[in-house]
């Protein structure tokens, strides 16, 4: 914990959620303060993406118990779009392709939706073009990607960069990165991590979901959590990630079974 006095951005208490009636999250607790970087690690199928989508408001997931406060306010009172405008951002594990919608139009509509909600001035296409070109440099994205349909025909790495570009445009308070590192080669990983680091600030928090400790060499977490079977089983500092890498998840999940 960098600063125990920092404001609490996200408070998750005893969160339960189901998809198609199947329980996936089974009592998840997590506290994230402004300025912090958290990493959530855990085996496939442990519910990490489910957690991120529940926070973002995906309609397929039903919250069956517990509560989530965002800046002290019940997050579930807000629809997905209102959460985004309030400052919650999810970088998707599998970004969606939207043929027929140009990336630049999409980014501008997103920017303006948030600007309008905050009472800031909306930007016309020309004004926005300047902004988006500047931000694209951050993730070393060729401007030609702005004229293409959203994620349509993008490679895995290009999609991930596009997610970080969206984050850079929206400047969220809480960014949840769901396996943004997976499928990236070392260069792309460095670029994406650089983009994320450039956006971190004492007012923002980042929750990274990842399989690999590799990413944590680039974006250094304050807290590391191990998730299994819909719960956080163990939390610690960076050294927990290294230990996990050395000993495998069984070390944590097995320990739970033994307990």
């Amino acid at each position, binding site marked *: 914990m960098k600063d125990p006095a920092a404001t609490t951005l996200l408070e998750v208490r005893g969160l339960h959620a189901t998809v198609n009636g199947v329980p996936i999250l089974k009592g998840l607790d997590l506290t994230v303060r402004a300025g912090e970087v958290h990493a959530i690690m855990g085996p496939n199928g442990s519910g990490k993406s489910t957690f991120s989508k529940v926070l*973002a408001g995906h*309609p397929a997931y039903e919250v069956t118990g517990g509560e989530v406060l965002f800046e002290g306010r019940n997050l579930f009172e807000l*629809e997905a*779009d209102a959460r985004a405008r309030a400052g919650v951002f*999810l970088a998707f594990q599998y970004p969606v392709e939207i*043929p027929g*919608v140009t990336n630049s139009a*999409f980014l501008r*509509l997103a920017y303006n939706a948030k600007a309008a909600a905050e009472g800031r001035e909306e930007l016309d296409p020309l004004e926005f073009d300047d902004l988006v070109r500047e931000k694209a440099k951050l993730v070393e994205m060729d401007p030609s990607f702005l004229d293409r349909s959203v994620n349509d025909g993008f490679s895995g790495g290009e999609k991930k960069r596009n997610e970080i570009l969206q984050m850079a445009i929206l400047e969220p308070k809480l960014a949840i990165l769901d396996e943004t590192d997976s499928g990236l080669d070392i260069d792309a990983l460095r670029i994406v991590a650089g983009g994320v680091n450039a956006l971190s600030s004492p007012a923002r928090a980042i929750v990274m979901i990842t399989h690999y400790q590799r990413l944590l060499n680039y974006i250094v977490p304050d807290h590391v959590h191990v998730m299994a079977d819909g719960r956080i089983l163990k939390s610690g500092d960076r050294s927990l990630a290294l230990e996990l890498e050395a000993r495998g998840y069984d070390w944590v999940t097995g320990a739970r079974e033994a307990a």
Partner: protein
Amino acid sequence: MVAIPLPALGSQALPPVPGAAAAAGLAEVVEAARAAAGRLPVPTPHDEAWRFTDLSPLARQPWQVDSGAAPTLDAARLAPLELDEAADARLVFVDGRFAPVLSSTAALPSGVRVGALAAMLADGGPAVREHLGRHAAFDVDFFSAVNTARLGEGAAVVCARGVQVPGAVHLLFLSTGRSAPLAIQPRVLVVAGEGSELTVVEEYASLGDSMVFTNAVTECVVEPGATLRHVRLQRENAVSFHVGRCAVSVARDARYRSVAVDIGARLSRLDHAVTLAGEGAEVTRDGLALLDARQHADSHTLLDHAKPHGTSRQLHKCVCDGGSHAVFNGRILVRPDAQRTDSSQQSRALLLSARAQVNAKPQLEIHADDVKAAHGATVGQLDADERFYLASRGLPADQARRLLTYAFAAEVIERIPVRSLVGRLAAQVMARSGL
């Protein structure tokens, strides 16, 4: 002014049409069409080709055949419809009559002749007489028969061999609603001579909000090695009726690229028949119906592969909101002679409301054995993951829905080979969906 019931529109003795067809030796055609119009019944849903389209609201209505007013307009009302690519390459028709003061063909190169039918019959060269009335069969079709019986007003575009026409030719048929209900019978002939290259935009639009019945017939002839790009845009008001027939003949090694968009009318029907009449003909035929409220749009296409080595590509999309109803019947005929035909047809429908309806049917008739023919049809709703993705970026649900609807339609709109029209339609679709 006297109003004529629909069944009598083509057969009843009416004041002569301005632009005397008879003078140019077409009297026989007109006579035969008049006889056919008297003989043929107005189609009903008992006719297989009209199963899903009930014409009784059109048939119940008596129609005036002449607005009685001079074909003029305040130029300011025309300005928003002008296309950059067709500056001084435009013919305008107001309430069915040619409007010379609003038209100009000054930008066109020599070698392409564009004019009102009457003038073109008089001095447009032999191609007009040779082709007019020869491609759109009127002996079996009530609406073609009526149109041909009233032959006179319309446009002809004749492009000489080897001439490449830059930009586009814009044929704009406007109704003002000054006198209603008005039935108009536009006629278009396009001849792209051997090896020529030409883009024609045929547009039907209402400037008023009173009821019009447009019964349009278009014939296109694409001679060997020529390229004709043909955009047909129907955006009449929501109380009007639109029936269109378009017959196209594509010769050896010629290309016909067409996009037909229906976004207007209370009830519209388009029969678009394209014959690949020479070896190696290449056709793309894309369509979009974008409907809301109680609109009904029926599109019947026929791609008739008559000769070997023909290629056809077809994408048809329907977007139905409210209680609207879209019909698509896509017939592909491969005749015994048409070996090595390569054809594909995709039909996609997007239903935005539980009350909206679509009937989409591919109809493949293949009589040759060495043929590639692919087809697919889907009907669906907006994709939940795409909606969530947009929501997760802060777009309100309603805006996300409109953006995705536009995106669905854009695939066809963007195939229109006239940039300013793409932009205008995009803006219109967005505005219509309130973006």
